[in-house]
């Protein structure tokens, strides 16, 4: 029965040409991309294709899907076609579930068609880009340092950055654990360093660095001198078969000349496994994006069980927007002074709570905290940030996002059924 209603919903969007319009617009947007000027970076067009698809085309589709899913039930009620369904043995829960499933199918269809087009266009653009700039088309696994320390003398520390001077007075050391467990293929590892470099030698472009990459337990590895360009990250390629005998990897760096300095933090050196598999990584990004659709559809349909079409559209958009700025809302609520804190801060006769702060606390701070708790976090469903860095989307990220979306959609479905069960159709 849910399937019947879902297919009916899908057919409606097909017959009313909504699907055609969304696909047409999406393809049009992607097709006019080559006409838009980009920076001189060779991979700029690839990046633009990804950004335009995941931000512009997906947003367009989400807008279309919100408009459809937020208005489907109100239109059924307004046109009274709902009489035809509810006079049949269809429970209200199944009606809502069918509607949600229909729109989810529609989203899946949209994403499959448009992402296939986008993927083909990315691969085509990549074929015109030199091999060394195709890093973005990799699905590397990122390893962050588990430990960071300065061996020897720390020159000074400023704003969380540890600075060491050259000439072996101090060495910056990054330790990585569990690399071998996770890194299964032997295609190689990249060490990406993004250090701050300074020198007393005046205006210079490069600073010579001594870099040692070694197994954390056995100690075997390789040491090389690298001329690092100021303000530019550099990548060191290593052969894991030679270096990695155990799970841990140590990377130590220091400037060779005593007049040079490096500033480092724990996040400045990262290790990436250089796996191929862009298509599967792209697929994971599309799946994560699809979960975003599932979530907003459930919310829009839930709103439409009680609200009229325009109000339910507006509500869905507000939730979608707020779901993207939850961090900002959270930060904002933290900035608002708690009236209890004020009480403790003021002695004696002034200990009576400031009524204005009490109101602010109850009318602004607490609602904002509740909003952060209730609203879904749409930022969680961002696959683009991984693709742009050429980083493999961890399976855990996909699974956790899936669980989050399914649980949230389940709650929405449950609430929708309860609301609709109480509704009368005049």
């Amino acid at each position, binding site marked *: *029965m849910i399937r019947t209603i879902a297919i009916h919903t899908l057919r409606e969007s097909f*017959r009313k040409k909504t699907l055609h319009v969304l696909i047409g617009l999406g393809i049009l947007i992607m097709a006019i991309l080559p006409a838009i000027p980009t920076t001189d970076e060779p991979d700029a067009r690839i990046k633009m294709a990804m950004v335009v698809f995941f931000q512009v085309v997906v947003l367009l589709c989400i807008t279309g899907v919100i408009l459809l899913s937020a208005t489907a039930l109100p239109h059924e009620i307004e*046109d009274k*076609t709902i009489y*035809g369904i509810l*006079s049949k*043995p*269809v429970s209200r829960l199944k009606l809502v579930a069918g509607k949600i499933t229909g729109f989810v199918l529609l989203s899946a269809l949209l994403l499959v068609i448009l992402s296939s087009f986008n993927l083909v266009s990315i691969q085509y653009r990549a074929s015109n880009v030199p091999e060394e700039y195709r890093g973005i088309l990799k699905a590397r696994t990122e390893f962050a340092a588990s430990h960071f320390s300065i061996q020897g003398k720390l020159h000074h520390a400023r704003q969380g950055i540890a600075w060491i001077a050259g000439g072996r007075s101090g060495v910056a050391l990054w330790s990585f654990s569990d690399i071998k467990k996770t890194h299964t293929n032997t295609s190689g590892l990249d060490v990406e360093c993004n250090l701050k470099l300074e020198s007393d030698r005046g205006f210079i472009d490069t600073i010579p660095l001594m870099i040692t990459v070694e197994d954390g337990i056995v100690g075997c590895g390789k040491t090389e001198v690298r001329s690092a360009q100021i303000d530019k990250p550099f990548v060191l390629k290593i052969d894991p078969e030679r270096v990695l005998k155990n799970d841990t990897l140590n990377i130590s760096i220091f400037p060779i000349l005593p007049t040079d300095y490096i500033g480092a933090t724990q996040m400045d050196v990262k290790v990436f496994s250089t796996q191929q598999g862009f298509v599967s990584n792209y697929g994971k990004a599309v799946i994560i994006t699809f979960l975003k659709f599932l979530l907003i559809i459930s919310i829009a349909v839930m709103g439409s069980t009680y609200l009229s079409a325009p109000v339910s559209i507006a509500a869905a958009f507000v939730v979608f927007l707020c779901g993207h700025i939850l961090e900002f809302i959270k930060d904002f609520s933290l900035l608002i002074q708690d009236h209890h804190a004020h009480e403790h801060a003021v002695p004696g006769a002034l200990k009576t709570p400031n009524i204005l702060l009490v109101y602010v606390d109850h009318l602004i701070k607490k609602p904002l905290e509740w909003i952060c708790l209730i609203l879904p976090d749409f930022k969680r469903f961002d696959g683009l940030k991984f693709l742009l860095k050429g980083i493999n989307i961890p399976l855990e990220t996909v699974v956790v996002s899936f669980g989050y979306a399914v649980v949230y959609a389940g709650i929405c479905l449950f609430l929708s059924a309860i609301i609709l069960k109480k509704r*009368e159709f*005049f």
Partner: protein
Amino acid sequence: MDSYAIRAEGLTKVYKDFWRRKSTSALTNLNLTIERGEIFGLLGPNGSGKTTTIKLFLGLLFPTSGKSWVLGYPSGNLTIKRNIGFLPEESYLYKFLTAEEILDFYAKLFDIEKKERKRRIDALIHEVKLDHVRKRPLSQYSKGMLRRIGLAQALINDPELVILDEPTSGLDPMGSRQMKDLILDFKRRKKTVVLCSHLLADVQDICDRIAIFNKGVLQVAGTVRELLSQNDAIEFVIKNLFNDDIEAVKAFIESRKGTVLSIKHPSSTLEDLFISIIQRR
């Protein structure tokens, strides 16, 4: 099993405004029973509570007080909806579908198997005389055609109880007569029909019992014969009588203390005349 197709006890519906204040009393204390296998007419002017009563039976509205049972189950019960067919007062159908598609959609909601679905769809489309437009979207249908397909969807599950809200509205006299014949056929097939109309002639022709509503209150209920018969008057319909004979009969009646109220030639209804002309051509 309940011997009644529909039973209502003290059924009351009061519509409330946005602030939950009582605004309109749509139905007041309805006590009613409808037997299985009978054609029952709900009569009344617009806004008298007929449609509200039907919606309460179907579970589309919830009663403010009182209870009702349909085919032995409380109103709105999902199981019993398998045995109900409902034709709303207007054809609220999905206009982007064809006749075949809409019937298939509703048949699927009853979990009817594919083969059986096809058989029923073909039979119903033929029965409501829409074979020639079965593949055309409903958006291109006339009001009468929509009414017919609306009736077909109400019968897709071969229901035990058929609820028809203004079934003849939008139909031409031929369609109206076909609809009446169809309803009479339901009776022959031992189905219960609840008919809601403000066209008195329609109801008089086909209903076994009727109930008349006004301002949400049931005014009177009973068989059509009971409600319409005038026990203190007698009607003769005589053929081939000359004027002299008429005077003689009149004089005879008056000699026996009877009063002749009217002497006139009997006439058929406009509907009968219209149909006879159309069929002759």
